[in-house]
Structure formats: structure tokens, C-alpha cells
């Protein structure tokens, strides 16, 4: 049997058991990660998983069942179980469930990949991390860490509406970090980002990072941070680097525009959103410099795909246009509830998890400035970069973020290094205070976005550029 045959059998079994709609995803994923520490390989892990997840809609109620068995019998049983679970859901029924229409299609799609990352010799990949971590140790790191991760995912999607879509998505990335331990505190510097940089690309992405060339600098910076003055407390002009901006977008825009949160579907766990659908199209989310797109079509970005996990083709749209909120991340069912005519942002973390609304690539369009211009135009402020901590409330309003490093800005120049920089604010107030935005966009990838119950890890992309904000409270400490 082909994987399409297995998925088709599961869908048919769900229909036979009473479902009025069903879909199935067969997925096969290979994963490899290697971590190095202080010049040695710390851990090498390779894993493989394969299975089928079936979604069934019975009346107005959903059910989902998944098994790691791709035989015909197991697939049919899974389809039947999904329908049975859906029938149990009807004991606490909701309003009539509908799906916004999506043209059924047969298609194949693959992400771009120059160098298959799983085919690169382990010794070459290990040498890269060993060299970088050794260099950091030589430059004073108490702990020198390096990591890469690779995912190679193939999936076959079949729906009762006639979809037959297969995709292969290869993702990889990595990074390094230097940790300096002082009396009573720990300082950390990472390159190129706290969790590294990731994309739907081959090993060429990791090579392009040139990890070894940055090892000495971040080790030196981590040690220097131990004796740097603390970030002053108060309200000031804040310039954020592009990596921290990616986190700012992810937490205070990306999650807030998830339609399932807006509809209350995540109320008990991840939370809701401060956004009200009645204000879609009119709400001023930020300053006129703020243009945020939902764009899974960006080649090589981590949130890219050909079709989402409901078979909706990737398409670009605005979430925020010239500061006005105009779009959401939606699935076929949530869009129908909200009265919207588009979906396309539903994905699952593997075959054993229910597809749900997830960020794709949610990021900023370029602005008219440069980072140097922002610094030159600032008399008194703080420049922060590289995310270290992130906390935001369940409505995605009240945030407090910490960065690894900061610098004083005085009279248009970057001055002293500052340790433990933090800033806090309320999402829309903060975004409305953005008065300068750089054109220097980097498509950052976030490989660790948690959501859902059971928990799912999502891979999201965030094109981001340095930006300047006014009257921001900084230097919050315990």
C-alpha cells in the first residue's frame, strides 16, 4: 500500500463510522541533533517516527485518533476510533460546525534544499561545533555550548473532500552560546540567536552562519557582561535589534492574531487575545510604520510550506497594514465561526497531534531607516538585542522581555555595555510608540513555539528588523 492508500483507508473508515467529514495525515519524520560542550560532543541523537492521524467530524463534534502503524487494518481502526471519539464529544455539543471552502486538489510540494543536512557527514557537523565551543572556552567561557537540529518531514494528506497532497519539508539550523558564571549571577551571549537560527533550508543555512567566526566575540562579551553596569531603571527611548524584534513580533502580535485564541478556544491554557473581531479592519495596533504579513511563501523561512495541514495552499496576506489590524491566522473551522473567507494557518506537530492554528511566517515589512540612523537620531536611550527571557499575559498584552546584552545610547552614539537589560509594556501602546523602523530585515526562525493540549511544538518564522520605540519602561529587576 502507498501512504496515500493508507490515508484514504482511514478517511473511508471514519466516513463509514458516521463522520460527515474526515481527513488523515500520514507522516514520516527523521530528526537529528548534536550538541557540543566545551570542545567535546555532548550528545548525538537521531530519531525516526511514522504514523497516521485521523480527524473526524460527526455532526458538530470533532474527534482525532493517531497510531504509529501504517498498515491498512490499523489505519481503518484509527478512522473508526476518530469517529467514535467525535461521537463522545457530542455529549457536550457546540454550535453547528462548518468549514470554509477550499478547493480540493492533488499536489506535491518540497522546500528548497541545496545540501541535504542529513547527508552531511556527522564528523563534519561535529567538527563545526567542537571548534566553535573550543574557541569560546579559550576566550573565557565557563560553559561553551553549540547545537544543531535537523528535521526531514514527509507527509501525505487525504480528505473526504478529495485532497491528495504530499509534501517534503527539510528544516535545519543551529547556534552557539557562551556562559560566564559570576558571584551570584550568570551571563549568557548567543550567536546568532538565543536558540540559534533555523529555516526550511539545507545545511547551507548552518554554513552561512559561520559559527566559528563569532565564537571569540560572544565569549568575550559574556565575560564583559559580568562586570558591566546594570541597565538603568526608568522610561527611555528603546532600540531593539532584529533578533529581539522577532521575539517581540512572535509574542505580542503572532499569538494575539491566532483566531482560535480570539474565539476563546485556548482560554484555559495558552489564553485568549486582547483583540476583538468587531475591530478587525479598524483597530490601530501600532504606528503607521507597522506592516505585518502572514506569509508562508517566503523561500527558506522556517514557517514556510506549500499547503497547511488542512490542504489550504500557502498564501500571503497582511495582518497589520500601516498600523491597522486587518488579518488573522485561521483554520477552516475557526474561519467559518468568525465569518471569514480564508484559512491556511493550521499545522500539527507530527502525526500524533491534532492540527491547530499556528503561526506561519509572521513578520515585519521593511521600514525606511537603518540601525545606524536610529542610533544617530537618539540622544538618550538603550539598545538591546538577543532574547534571554520572555513573559506575557494570557491576553497577549502585558509583556516583560529580557535581552542578553544592552548598550547605552548617548548623543547619537553607542556607549557602555549594559547587563541584565529588560523592558516591559502593553502591546498596542508599545507598537504605537514605534517611530523608526529599519529596512534590514532578517527572516528569523523560532523552533520552539509551545501551544495546545497535549502540548505541541511549532516552527515559526519572523522576518524582523531593528526598530525604535519611545517612552518604554526598562530595567525591571527583582
Amino acid at each position, binding site marked *: 500500500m502507498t501512504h496515500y492508500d493508507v490515508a484514504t483507508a482511514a478517511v473511508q473508515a471514519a466516513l463509514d463510522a458516521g463522520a460527515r467529514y474526515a481527513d488523515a495525515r500520514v507522516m514520516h519524520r527523521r530528526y537529528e541533533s548534536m550538541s557540543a560542550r566545551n570542545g*567535546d560532543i*555532548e*550528545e548525538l541523537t537521531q530519531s525516526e517516527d511514522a504514523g497516521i492521524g485521523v480527524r473526524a467530524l460527526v455532526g458538530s463534534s470533532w474527534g*482525532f485518533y*493517531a497510531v504509529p502503524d501504517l498498515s491498512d487494518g490499523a489505519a481503518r481502526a484509527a478512522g473508526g476510533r476518530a469517529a467514535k471519539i467525535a461521537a463522545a464529544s457530542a*455529549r457536550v455539543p457546540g454550535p453547528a460546525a462548518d468549514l470554509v471552502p477550499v478547493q480540493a486538489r492533488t499536489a506535491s510540494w518540497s522546500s528548497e534544499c541545496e545540501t541535504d543536512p542529513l547527508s552531511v557527514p556527522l564528523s563534519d557537523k561535529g567538527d563545526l561545533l*567542537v571548534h566553535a565551543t573550543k574557541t569560546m572556552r579559550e576566550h573565557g567561557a565557563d560553559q561553551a555550548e553549540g547545537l544543531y537540529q535537523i528535521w526531514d518531514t514527509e507527509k501525505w494528506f487525504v480528505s473526504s473532500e478529495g485532497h491528495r497532497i504530499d509534501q517534503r519539508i527539510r528544516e535545519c539550523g543551529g547556534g552557539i552560546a557562551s556562559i560566564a558564571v559570576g558571584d551570584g549571577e550568570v551571563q549568557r551571549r548567543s550567536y546568532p540567536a538565543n536558540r540559534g537560527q533555523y529555516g526550511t533550508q539545507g545545511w547551507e543555512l548552518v554554513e552561512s552562519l559561520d559559527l566559528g567566526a563569532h565564537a571569540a566575540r560572544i565569549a568575550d562579551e559574556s565575560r564583559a557582561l559580568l562586570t558591566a553596569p546594570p541597565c538603568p531603571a526608568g522610561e527611555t527611548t528603546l532600540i531593539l535589534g532584529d533578533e529581539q524584534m522577532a521575539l517581540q513580533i512572535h509574542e505580542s502580535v503572532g499569538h494575539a492574531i491566532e483566531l482560535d485564541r480570539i474565539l*476563546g478556544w485556548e482560554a484555559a491554557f495558552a489564553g485568549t487575545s486582547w483583540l476583538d473581531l468587531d475591530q478587525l479592519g479598524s483597530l490601530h495596533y501600532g504606528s503607521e510604520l507597522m506592516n505585518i504579513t502572514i506569509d508562508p511563501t517566503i523561500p527558506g523561512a522556517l514557517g514556510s510550506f506549500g499547503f497547511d495541514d488542512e490542504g489550504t495552499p500557502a498564501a500571503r496576506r497582511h495582518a497589520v497594514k500601516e498600523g491597522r489590524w486587518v488579518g488573522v491566522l485561521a483554520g477552516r473551522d475557526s474561519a467559518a465561526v468568525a465569518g471569514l473567507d480564508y484559512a491556511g494557518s493550521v499545522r500539527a506537530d507530527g502525526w500524533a497531534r491534532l492540527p491547530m492554528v499556528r503561526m506561519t511566517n509572521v513578520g515585519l515589512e521593511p521600514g525606511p531607516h537603518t540601525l545606524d540612523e536610529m542610533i544617530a537620531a537618539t540622544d538618550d536611550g538603550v539598545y538591546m538585542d538577543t532574547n534571554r527571557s520572555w513573559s506575557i499575559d494570557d491576553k497577549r498584552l502585558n509583556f516583560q522581555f529580557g535581552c542578553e546584552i544592552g548598550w547605552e545610547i548617548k548623543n547619537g552614539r553607542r556607549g557602555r555595555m549594559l547587563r541584565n537589560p529588560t523592558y516591559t509594556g502593553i502591546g498596542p501602546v508599545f507598537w504605537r510608540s514605534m517611530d523608526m523602523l529599519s529596512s534590514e530585515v532578517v527572516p528569523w526562525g523560532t523552533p520552539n513555539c509551545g501551544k495546545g493540549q497535549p502540548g505541541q511544538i511549532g516552527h515559526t518564522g519572523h522576518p524582523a528588523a531593528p526598530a525604535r520605540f519611545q517612552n518604554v519602561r526598562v530595567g525591571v529587576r*527583582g
Partner: protein
Amino acid sequence: MSAELAQRVLGMVPAGVEAEVFVDHMARALTRFANSFIHQNVADATTTVRLRLHADGRTASGATTVTTDEGLRGLVSRTLDAARLCPPDAGWPGLAAPAALAGEGNWDEETAKASPEARADRVRAFVDAAGGLETAGYCRTLHWSAAFANTAGQVAAGRTAEIAMDGIARVEGADGAARIASGQLSDVDGAALGARAAAKARAGAGAVELPPGRYEVVLEPAAVVDVLQNLSLYGFNGKAYNERQSFAEPGAQQFDEAVTLADDALGDTGLGVPFDAEGTPKRRVELVSGGVTQRVAHDRRTAAEAGAESTGHAALGGRTRGALPANLRLMPGPAASTVEAGAVIDPAAASLVAGVERGLLVTDLWYTRVLDPKSLVVTGLTRNGVWLIEDGELTTPVRNFRFTQSYPQALGPGAVLGVGGEATMFPDMWGAAWWTAPALRLASWNFTGGASG
């Protein structure tokens, strides 16, 4: 089946190679509700085979869910190839020697085999008991069985089952929460939980904003769980300790004398299997006794580095995060004189609230992140209900705060004004970890911002 799978894999490993195999079968079902109806209802049953090999002084790990002969042979072959290409592993601590287990784990058949209807009925009861308030949450059942075998002769098997329910009720912008975890299906009463969540939500309506600052607090057991999780991850983690990134100093009076903290996956009510990822038997490990830090948790590697013995805390999925005590129990205080809890205050917190002249009752801590791992300064928010306490009574619902607080400092000598007389078990948000906590009355908690910034 898991034990047989472990032996099959071990039999595929060439002679002379040190190997350990951990097979776990997780059957998980979760019925999720929002806007007072079931909107997601999922189940999966997954067997994962994890293999770690040490060949010619080199170590590699692999895992698969493909349990056919071909899949298992592929796992062994790939992992051997990977090990050959790895540099020498000078810190290899060797395999766990044969050792007896403390039982097979707490397992209840009715819980393990709970049906979708049983979960849905509890949701129905929760929704109905909320009296028309909007509700959301989940009811989850798990059946986890595991087997271990290594080439040193250690063989282990165990199983456990769990039910957990966690829900909120909502009214006029106020949320009230109730949750519990147990090994017995019959322990989880959806109606009782729904009624408590609704009472808390109603009592939270019309909340006022208070100025940030330091307040005396009573943390309900659910909020204390967040403290335990962060102490586990950053403090009592043997790897963090070895790397000098932990606050822990064994032998030092780092906590108030009212604090006794142990990790115990078993006991009468524990919900774990009786061995860790390296096959080391689980046992009760006291980490803090009367406020004095006793030890940190170790796997075999961190133990070897520290000159200690494994405490049975090797984590599944690799050693990068270190050895984590993920079944922490904060011991309850002496049984308190009977205080009428009412519908809002968790009964476990009632006697503590009665002693507060002016302070805050906090239900949950949310989205906590560490600013500095060594001092364990954490920022986060309150959630699901805060009330002003005046002269031992709840007087006013309060809007949520942001806080920035060192957790060890909050529990430091002289800082704990009371420990609740009973402890509650809670599910972990992400997986197989369970936390047991009483309420705590603390002298000071640093609220650094209000709901409006």
C-alpha cells in the same frame, strides 16, 4: 509487550557494545472544552523505542516509533554508525548495574481504560456545575507503561495511569480555576471542580487595580507548583549544579525551616514508573529538610562528575537539560485548626488566609521565565484570581499583577509564615510530571507592575 521489545532490540546489538534500551508505551486521551462545549477530543497510543550505545569509547542515541523488525534493525544500525563517527566520550559513566525496583508503579485499570464517554461525562458535569458561566479546560487520562534493559543485566518494567482535570469558569472578565491529578478515575469529580471554578470566577468579578510593590501573599497550591517547577529545572538539577549555575548549596540553610522538599515518583500516590531513563531505580529523595538543602538530583553522568551517586533522575530524551526532579512534593505543614474555607478559597489555603492582616491571595502564577538562573529571579503574572486579604478575610478582587521575584529568596529563612496542612497533586502542563503542593503564606512577594503596565 514493552519488555519483549526491549529484549529484541538488545539482541540486535553486536557483542562488546554497551547498550541500554528504554521502551515506553503512552496511551494518552484528552478531551478539551471551550465556550462550554467539547471542541477538541484526541487520543493516541504510541510506542517509542530509545536506544543508547557506547561502542569503542564513543556514545550515541537514537529513537524510533517504527517497531517492525526492519525499523528496529534500522535504529540499531543508525545508532552504531553514529557512535563510530562521534569523538571519544571521556565522561561515559557506564551502565546501571542490576538493582531491585520499588514495585511496578501505581496503576489503576479503570483509569487506564477510561473511555471517551467517561471523560466527556466529567466535562458535562463541570459545565453544568458552573451554572451558566462560560467554561473551558480539559479532562485527560494517561496509561504509561515502560520497560528497560541494558547489557549490564539491569531489567525493569513498570506502569502507571493518571486522570487529570483542569478547567476555568469565566464571568465579566474574571476567570476562576480548579484542577487536580490522581491515579484514580473516581477521585475526579467534574461537578465539584466546576462549582469551585465558578465560585472563584464570580468572586473575582469587578476586580480593582492595586499599586505594584511588595505584598504578603498566600499562594494557593496551584501557584506553589510553579515555584516547584522552577526550583526543579534550575536549582536541584544536577547538571546546573555541576556547572555552578544553580543556587543550591548542600548543607546550607537556604530555605525557611518550614520547607521540606522531596522528589518521589512512587509512594502511595505517585504517578511515575519505578526507574529512570538509565534504568536506575526510583526512590524518595529528600532535597531540602527543615530548610537545609541536602542534595541535588543526579543522573549517572552528573553524579560521576560530582563524585556522587545517581538519584534516579536521568531524563528521557537526552542529557542536555540535565537531571530533573520532576515529581516534587513540598511537605504540608501541621494540620491547622478548622477554618471554614467557603467556596472561593482553596481549603488548603483557608487557615493561612485567616492569619493575614493585609496581603494577597494568589491562585495561579503564569508564564514565568527566569531572568537569572543562579539567583532564580523569575518574572511572570498572576492568573485566575487575586484577592486582597484584610484581617483574615477576602475583601476585594484584584486585577492581575506582574511580578519579578527570586524564588529561593521568597522561601528563605524567616520568609515562610505558614505552610498549608494538606497537599494537592497537580498535573504537569506538558507531560509526565506531577507536582504535589500545599498552600504557602509568604512574608513578601515583589509585584513589579499592574495589569495596565
